[in-house]
């Protein structure tokens, strides 16, 4: 059995396929996969040479053999897949290696970038891989995702294989010299995420030679509890007359690989520039068995580009993305104004949070779908790992599935039914889970909470979830109601830490109902950290609370030379007294002084009624800005800056209106049309419209025609704005308009974008054309 050998025997992979094909006459731009059908004897002979050289694995000639990349081929991708696998089988038979050599289905990047940066959805990526795997799964021994640069795509691929086959899955990513993939993933984040998803082997290939890959390989070996494989290039690529060459010889290659082979690598082979000779030399140099490795298992959670490791210091979890007790957030969730959640996330990020809790539980909303949507929106912008906070198992599952990285899951408790619902999700998606020390209620005594922690850890083990994947919440009680029990929590932390797990607490619960809550919060936080708290869930915007953590790090020798403390605390006095000018609100808007506008607006509201302030100060100031822009007195960034400033002023004024009094105009719907990914122009128009008090429902970029039609029916907006930048996407703008007309869309449709003109707008059936943001404002003021 292959799985029995992985991690024990040192197994040898084959070398480059492309290099061999080029030698046989493959031209740049030719499709190598077609040779599976056109020249099977060539492919078979290459596989045979690698087998004769000593390879245990041969990888099929199917690197780009998916439905997207092979659209340009004269053959269907499934036919080429079948031919490739059949060639590999033939070679194995010819070499007499049917019992000890393995055929690996080779899968390279899909070739289109996934959302949010790209347009391919996670589900589409999943389906593409699934279709490849389903075609040949009965005739291969394993699946290899190689030369990958996007972790999200890797995740979709692993799930596709794992959910439909029992084949072993191997993953290698390609790192640049800056130790990141082209999508920005770092080695630790890669390992942390992929081993969580259940890969059977992981490692690196391509891009660099064995010497240059050293630091990356060492890093992976030091954190991966999964067997590690490597397939470097034959040195660094050199460009000669526009063609790529590699200069490391087979002997040098084997010599350079020697160190890694002794260090605990489980499988080695070659990538670009390597040949059967390289593999022969490698095989000769390799010991029979993989050297044993010792890994210190640590608790780590990851976003796509960042990993937070527990144990070295206190990790701050931002608590503010939770509607409980927050009117504004509740309303935003109900009205699907998710921008507010994103800006709340950004504030916490800027304030120094390490992880963000995300809770969207609200009566009357579809929590699983909302959670999925919000997680996707947040990870488009935020690079911090997310803590998925829900008591709804379906919401947790959806969030984990679409999360890019290794998630933190909040939470399970001591009840069997809760653990039975959530642990399978934790295991499948490789998350870290928070366990609350309660079952039927919160036990009063530390010892009882300790017992529940033990129960949770034991139950998790039954699901194959290790201690390092669990963080225990000893639960904060409220001093005003259960004063006697507050210190039981501290005692419980000390006890639980002895179990070898990390701990978490929602800190601010302690102070409910008492005056000067921040004082109690930060005192309790200090005591809890002393007791061993690793993950306080707090408001990171509370500078003094954050300062307490800085101080703790100094006093507990976690902030060596007080570096962070000095950086964070040296200029606190300055930031408190930010320079304030003496401009009136009118001028603040004209000059776009974003930092000053909120305080000034509040001050003005002491003297003026909200409506009066809007009509007499804000609108006239905006009009000056608009006019200055139109006459060329100011230019685009200044217009946007004033618009953003006005938006802030409106937000302050809005708080003064009694509930029900809605001063918003609109709503208007905006979208960058299907196929177009350039949406900064639309976003500028949106900000300017918002500054004029319009509620803008922003559907984003590359918006499918159907989605615009659905949104029209759902929101019944007062106008619909469509944007397109390229001539090619004006076509889909026209189709969108046609579709809207079929839906009896009665509201005016206006269009804009670099290539549009009044004439084109008319030709494609739009009602209006607007040249820029100010023209859009003028238009809407006129027609709505």
């Amino acid at each position, binding site marked *: 059995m292959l799985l029995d050998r992985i991690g024990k025997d040192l197994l040898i992979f084959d070398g480059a396929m492309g290099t061999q094909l080029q030698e046989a006459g493959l031209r740049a731009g030719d499709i190598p996969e077609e040779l599976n059908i056109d020249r099977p004897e060539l492919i078979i002979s290459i596989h045979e040479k690698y087998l004769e050289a000593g390879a245990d694995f041969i990888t099929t000639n199917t690197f780009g053999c998916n439905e997207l990349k092979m659209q340009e081929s004269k053959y269907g991708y499934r036919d080429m897949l079948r031919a490739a696998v059949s060639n590999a089988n033939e070679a194995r038979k010819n070499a007499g290696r049917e019992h000890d050599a393995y055929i690996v289905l080779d899968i390279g990047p899909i070739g289109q970038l996934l959302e949010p940066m790209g347009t391919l959805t996670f589900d589409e990526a999943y389906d593409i891989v699934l279709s490849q795997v389903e075609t040949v799964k009965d005739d291969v021994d394993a699946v290899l995702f190689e030369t990958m640069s996007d972790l999200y795509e890797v995740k979709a691929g692993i799930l596709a294989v794992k959910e439909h086959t029992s084949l072993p899955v191997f993953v290698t990513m390609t790192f640049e010299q800056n130790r990141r993939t*082209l999508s920005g993933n770092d080695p630790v984040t890669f390992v942390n995420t992929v081993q969580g998803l259940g890969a059977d082997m992981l490692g690196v290939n391509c891009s660099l030679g064995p010497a240059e890959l050293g630091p990356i390989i060492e890093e992976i070996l030091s954190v991966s509890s999964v067997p590690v494989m490597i397939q470097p290039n034959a040195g660094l690529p050199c460009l000669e007359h526009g063609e790529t060459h590699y200069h490391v010889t087979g002997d040098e290659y084997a010599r350079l690989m020697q160190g890694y082979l002794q260090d605990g690598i489980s499988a080695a082979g070659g990538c670009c520039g390597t040949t059967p000779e390289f593999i022969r030399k490698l095989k000769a140099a390799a010991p029979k068995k993989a050297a044993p490795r010792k890994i210190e298992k640590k608790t780590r959670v990851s976003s796509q580009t960042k990993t937070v490791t527990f144990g070295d210091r206190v990790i701050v979890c931002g608590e503010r993305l939770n509607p409980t007790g927050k009117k504004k957030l509740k309303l935003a969730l109900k009205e699907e104004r998710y921008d507010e959640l994103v800006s709340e996330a950004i504030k916490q990020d800027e304030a120094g949070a390490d992880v963000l809790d995300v809770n969207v539980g609200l009566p009357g909303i579809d929590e699983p779908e909302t959670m999925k949507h919000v997680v996707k929106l947040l990870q488009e912008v935020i690079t911090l790992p997310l803590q998925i906070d829900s008591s709804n198992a379906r919401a947790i599952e959806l969030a984990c599935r679409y999360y890019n990285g290794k998630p933190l899951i909040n939470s399970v408790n001591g009840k069997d039914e809760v653990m039975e619902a959530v642990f399978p999700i934790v295991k499948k998606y490789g998350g870290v889970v928070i366990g609350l020390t309660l079952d039927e209620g919160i036990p009063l005594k530390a010892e009882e909470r300790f017992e529940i922690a033990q129960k949770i850890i034991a139950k998790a083990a039954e699901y194959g979830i290790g201690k390092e994947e669990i963080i225990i919440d000893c639960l904060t009680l409220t001093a005003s109601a259960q004063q006697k029990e507050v210190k039981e929590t501290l005692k419980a932390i000390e006890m639980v830490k002895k179990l070898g797990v990390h701990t978490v607490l929602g800190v601010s619960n302690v102070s409910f109902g008492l005056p000067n809550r921040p004082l109690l919060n930060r005192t309790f936080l200090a005591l809890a950290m002393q007791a061993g708290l690793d993950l306080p869930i707090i408001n990171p915007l509370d500078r003094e609370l954050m300062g307490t953590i800085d101080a703790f790090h100094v006093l507990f020798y976690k902030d060596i030379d007080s570096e962070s403390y000095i950086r964070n605390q040296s200029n606190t006095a300055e930031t408190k007294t930010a320079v304030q000018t003496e401009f009136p609100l009118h001028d603040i808007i004209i000059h776009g002084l974003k930092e000053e506008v909120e305080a000034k607006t509040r001050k003005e509201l002491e003297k003026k009624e909200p409506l009066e302030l809007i009509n007499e100060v804000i609108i006239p100031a905006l009009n000056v800005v608009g006019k200055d822009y139109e006459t060329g007195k100011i230019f685009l960034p200044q217009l946007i800056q004033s618009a953003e400033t006005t938006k802030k002023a409106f937000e302050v004024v809005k708080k003064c209106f009694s509930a029900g009094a809605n001063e918003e105009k609109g709503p208007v719907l905006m979208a960058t049309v299907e196929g177009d990914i350039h949406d900064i122009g639309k976003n500028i128009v949106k900000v300017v419209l918002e500054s004029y008090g319009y509620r803008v429902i922003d559907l984003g970029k590359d918006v499918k025609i159907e989605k615009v039609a659905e949104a029209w029916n759902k929101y019944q907006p007062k106008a619909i704005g469509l944007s397109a930048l390229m001539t090619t996407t004006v076509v889909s703008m026209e189709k969108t308009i046609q579709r809207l007309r079929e839906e009896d869309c009665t509201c005016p449709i206006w269009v804009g974008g670099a290539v549009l003109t009044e004439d084109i707008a008319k030709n494609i059936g739009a009602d209006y054309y607007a040249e820029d943001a100010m023209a859009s404002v003028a238009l809407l003021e006129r027609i709505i």
Partner: protein
Amino acid sequence: MIKENALKYLGHTGQQITDEMESLLDECIREVKQVSQPKAVSRRFELFGALPQIKELGLSLPGDQIREAFLQCSHCLFIGATLGVTLERKVKYYEKSNMTKAAVMDAVGSAYLEAYCDEYEEGLGYPNRSYRLCPGYGDIPLSLNREIARVLDVGKTLGVTLTPDHLMIPQKSMLGLIGIGTPERKKQCGQCVMREDCVFRKRGQRCY
């Protein structure tokens, strides 16, 4: 040059630049340079005939623009460059938190990409060359992006991918062609296919 071009892309036509705007520009230039991971690749091919053709690829280069620009060229270069995906992510971040900065970052990114491409091109050592011609310009079909992308294998070498409509991701990327062997040819505003509708020209500016 980066600052001047960025201002041009932002529609600046001589308005007074406040101190705040000046420092925002400087900050964005610093940040764009810091988060960009500029990378470029190129490959040279021999040209045949007036069409012209690249026999090695079995490819005829389409359109009048290329034919005219490559008239005296013996070879052509396929060239690809990008500033990487991290910059794109950063601009997205600012679009949600500081739209003014996002717009300036975007313009600075475009200017930086141009400057980087110029520098890369200069370093290739072909003094007698045409200017860069990119798919989407004039009668060069956008779909030629796909050919260039495949030949240069930019997914693997640069991390640049194309959408089904042939648009590049990350957006601050470039795929293009340069003719070699011609006496050096500079861009000429008056001969540009965009001359009738060009916003820069209307403002009395040049795009280059």
